[in-house]
């Protein structure tokens, strides 16, 4: 069975963006990958992101999600530190 990879658009903000050195990238993942798995895959490409493993928050398609949230082809995954607006 030929399983298609899923393509995810990744957005990075704040200290995560600064550490990674980019605010946006695309990544191809195995299907049925969850957000935590995507983060691990991204940390291999952007090692400085690994510092945020325990503190990073996630959103998929502009909604807050937990790390076990399953990703789908075409999703936009945002990774960011705890918020500090206001």
């Amino acid at each position, binding site marked *: 069975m030929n399983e298609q990879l899923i393509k995810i658009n990744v957005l990075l*903000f704040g200290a995560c963006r600064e550490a990674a050195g980019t605010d946006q990238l695309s990544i191809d993942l195995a299907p049925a990958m969850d957000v935590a798995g995507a983060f691990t895959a991204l940390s291999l490409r952007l090692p400085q992101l690994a510092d945020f493993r325990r503190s990073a928050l996630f959103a998929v398609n502009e909604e807050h999600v937990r790390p076990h949230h399953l990703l789908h082809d075409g999703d936009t995954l945002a990774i960011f*530190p705890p918020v*500090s*607006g*206001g």
Partner: protein
Amino acid sequence: MSEDIFEITREPIAKSGLEQRLLTGGAGAMVTFDGVVRNQTKGRAVVTLHYEAYVPMALKEMRRLGDELREHWPDIERIGMIHRFGELKISDSSVVIVITSPHRRVAFEACHYAIDRLKQTVPIWKKEIFEDGEAWVEGQSPNRQGNE
């Protein structure tokens, strides 16, 4: 409520314009919170503040906060929130929240709650630029009610 106003902007916040847009006759009270850039943090002099925003999601969260406010305080007349991002100088407004209601107690309570909640939920981050360095402000994890 479709007449509520939620905006994210790089421009200086037009506070009195926002207030005027929200005064539609039914209000006896208007309470405005204006968050301004302070010149120091823990004794360290701040030169500028850099705000970064996930704009479409921040707008969604602000609208969601508006729904939350109306659920808690059904008497609210109008809600307005404008958050600025980019480079801000000392005493610039970073966020303005306006609540109008027939009587003042609701406006005071809801406005107080609104800024506390905005700081927990809206995807915006700030970095302090000092004379001798810079540091991201440590933030809060969104405290979602109910789901997840």
